[in-house]
């Protein structure tokens, strides 16, 4: 029994995700070589545009690990953007104040949701649906106008870029193109690393897995299930708020429809990244790749330049379906094996 293969079903899912990403990206490079798909910057752009989503999806993964779900994230990102925009533009907050306010909103929002779900034991779907309505409605309560961020410091942050010393090329217009990344990318990757450490190396992180694996066992092994769940939703909303800040750095404005349907992207990314919806299995590395796969699909459809945008939705759902079925089959096989 000792030489049991270490690649169990769950690692396999992660492996499939990574391989899939590489294959898809590779195919893109081959087909759209003349359209610059192979440029290093294309890969970096994936990170730049999806930095916010990466944070949000990391939070979603944490919640899904406990066997829950948080569909309020998209609206919360929208609310964060609006608060930042309205605060900095109309109320003349400094960026630091705006960020602090947004983070506090995230924590409070998460605490309320977490309390209702973890302590009162109400289904996560319903509560976070209410959260979704609430946050989206609150944006409109603040203002239904489109608010631009005209704070100079914040604009400077948004504009900041880190030139990478390699992988440059001269484009058709004779300009030397050096690859670069922006601040959100660094923060997002940092968030991934920190979340990874939390999940892998802290007691709280392991409790998330334990609760997702078996709630009753976790309780009998002496873990505080209610608190763990509540913290999970707080973490999700907090990461979501960080994601909201990054999203804001990219979009520089707030309006009612901001980040609509982002929750579904986050869930899909987590699932594609190998997070089990029943809880207990998954990690943020997979989620990162899930986001990248989603981004790659978008980029492929974009680069094609002839397809309807619907195709990327369809491709993502097909992939989602594929992973769900794969997970289900693994689960059924496991059950069979146990008998």
């Amino acid at each position, binding site marked *: 029994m000792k030489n049991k293969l270490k690649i169990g079903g769950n690692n396999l899912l992660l492996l499939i995700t990574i391989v899939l990403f590489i294959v898809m990206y590779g195919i893109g490079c081959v087909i759209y070589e003349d359209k610059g798909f192979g440029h290093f910057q294309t890969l970096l752009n994936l990170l730049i545009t999806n930095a916010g989503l990466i944070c949000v999806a990391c939070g979603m993964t944490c919640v899904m690990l406990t066997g829950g*779900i948080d569909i309020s994230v998209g609206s919360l990102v929208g609310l964060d953007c609006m608060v930042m925009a309205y605060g900095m533009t109309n109320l003349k907050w400094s960026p630091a104040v705006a960020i602090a306010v947004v983070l506090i909103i995230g924590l409070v929002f998460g605490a309320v949701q977490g309390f*209702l779900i973890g*302590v*009162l*034991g*109400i*289904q996560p*779907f*319903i*509560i976070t*649906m*209410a*959260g*979704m*309505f*609430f946050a*989206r*409605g*609150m*944006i*409109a*309560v603040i203002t*239904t106008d489109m608010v631009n961020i005209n704070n100079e410091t914040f604009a400077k942050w948004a504009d900041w870029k880190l030139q990478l010393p390699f992988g440059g090329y001269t484009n058709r217009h004779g300009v030397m193109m050096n690859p670069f990344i922006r601040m959100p990318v660094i923060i997002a990757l940092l968030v991934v690393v920190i979340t990874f450490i939390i999940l892998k190396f802290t007691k709280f992180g392991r409790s998330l897995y334990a609760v997702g694996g078996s709630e009753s066992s976790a309780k009998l092994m002496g873990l505080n299930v209610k608190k763990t769940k509540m913290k999970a939703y707080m973490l999700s909303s907090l990461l979501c708020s960080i994601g909201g800040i990054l999203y804001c750095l990219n979009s520089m404005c707030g309006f*009612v429809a901001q980040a609509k349907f982002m929750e*579904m992207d986050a*869930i*899909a990314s987590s*699932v594609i990244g190998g997070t089990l*919806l*029943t809880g207990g299995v998954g990690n943020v590395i997979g989620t990162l790749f899930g986001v990248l796969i989603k981004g790659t699909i978008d980029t492929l459809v974009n680069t094609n330049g002839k397809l*309807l945008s*619907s*195709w990327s*939705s*369809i491709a*993502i*759902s*097909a992939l*989602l*379906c594929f992973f*769900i*079925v794969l*997970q*289900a*089959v693994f*689960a*059924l096989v496991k059950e069979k094996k146990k008998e």
Partner: protein
Amino acid sequence: MSKEKNSFWKKCTGSKLFFPAVCLLVVILVNVIKSPSFLQISINNGVLYGRLIDIANRGSEIAILAIGMTLTIAVSAGTDISVGSVMALVASCCCTSLVGYGVNSASSVKMPIIFGVLFGIFIGGVCGCFNGFMVSNLKVQPMVATLVLYTAARAIGLVVSNNQNTYVHVKQYKYLGNFWHIGGWECPIPTPIFVAVICVILATLLLKKTALGMYIQAVGINPKAARIMGINSGLIIFLCYVICGLGAGIAGTVASSRIYSADSNNIGLNFEMDAILAVALGGNSLAGGKFSLAGSIIGAYTIQALSTTLLAFGVKTEQAPVIKAIVIVIIVVIQAPAIQSYMKNRKARKAGATGGEAVAK
């Protein structure tokens, strides 16, 4: 005599429909206070006219969806979040099959309208089969299983209708979503109301005249026991999702007929949330089991009444969700087991303290 009154009152308050009915009444009352003409129904231009008619008319789609949603929640404690998207897909399929692919606007149809409508409903059923298969055979959590079509169906709808609104400018196509004409006579009641009533009657017949209703509750409450006594739990779960899909199909064709076009971007947008909310408002537990269809229907019209009210009060469309959210939270918190047992304990303690008095009450 007063005792009798008490017992009647108790019967009313004890009924599962009490809470939803009160909600509906409260909403209507608020309106009546604001403008007494709210309850007024008149005949205008040969058709019924009034706010109440609007609520009944506009609430039809939610009511139809709520039927299916009630069943999926009852049988699997699972919400079908794909229904809104499926409505859009159904509308696209229906219109495209009538006028052909890529046609933006047509004033004649290629085949009898009934076939287009039936085809649309059939597509809804197919979507239901897909969801049902995922939930009952692959044992995927309902919300996640239906997430696939939630994202895909609307997009497929757009592909089917070539990314544009497909108009069917044919008089007959408007009947389903507006008023029915027979010869020169115009039916004074909006057709969607009939459709909703027919759906409710059909569903009631199916649930009451066959054993399906009993089976659904049995499977929802205790699938293991249901299996032991010979009920095919998987099949029942599957059936519920198919019914839910068919409901989405019907709702989709009605919504499409209202605007005699397939507007894939907007048809059914956020309807899944309203349908789930309707079920919850109807006093049904989202944890599955025993259900009350009547409650869900009342819930559906309560939501519509709420939406209409907010509109009449001039609350901005985008702000309305805040109020919806608060309503949801209040309802589920009242229903939460932790709160219920707390209340029960308090009641018991009170009863213990006051002795027999509480019993007499």
